[in-house]
């Protein structure tokens, strides 16, 4: 998805993991994924660069769809759709 599309996507769950370092954001995503329905989109807010590679890899293994990342001021948002 393009940055513009990601900015307008409807998010069912927002996980703010900006206060944690690796593997914190990944584990926060793991805990939160059980709270949304299949087809829902979740965003993960992180300031840990490792999250940008962790979430796509994790999505690939778990069967979720990685949608992309959007840079914000001092952090970024990663988007994924639950399988």
């Amino acid at each position, binding site marked *: 998805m393009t940055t513009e599309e990601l900015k307008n996507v409807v998010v069912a769950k927002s996980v703010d993991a900006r*206060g944690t*370092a690796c593997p914190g954001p990944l*584990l926060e995503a793991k805990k939160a994924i059980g709270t949304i329905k299949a087809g829902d989109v979740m965003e993960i807010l992180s300031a840990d660069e490792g999250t940008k590679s962790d979430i796509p890899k994790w999505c690939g293994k778990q069967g979720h769809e990685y949608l992309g990342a959007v840079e914000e001021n001092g952090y970024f948002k990663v988007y994924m759709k639950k399988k």
Partner: protein
Amino acid sequence: MEPKKLCLALYTGSVDKLTAAGVILGGAAADDMKVDIYVLLQGARAFRKDIGDNSDKLPMAENADLREGFLQSLKNLKVKTWVEFFKEAKAITDVKIHICGLAGKVWGGEKLDDFIDLADDICGISAYITSAQEADVNLFI
């Protein structure tokens, strides 16, 4: 599908390597891996009830002169302690922690109750070898 299995031989009793093990456990938990941890020699000391999360009693494996800076940096970054990492992984996935019987005795621990409540049992070396043979990923830390 059967979950992938990680077998970790945890020899270390140092705060830096225990923290690294905790980070790896986090990754395994996110992947729903089944994890078997075999606590060997120095590792069993860290699992004693009077030590555990008490970083003052845990040495560094490398660069001992950087210890204070390392611990302060972990604190500044709000990184969990090794015990908190292990607890979190146990709450998410199937993690079993086995204390080597010999290692326990070396540090004065004969019974499960002598160790922090992360430990699930005390075992012999055959249990480790069997688990290692069956595992998809083997690590020695």
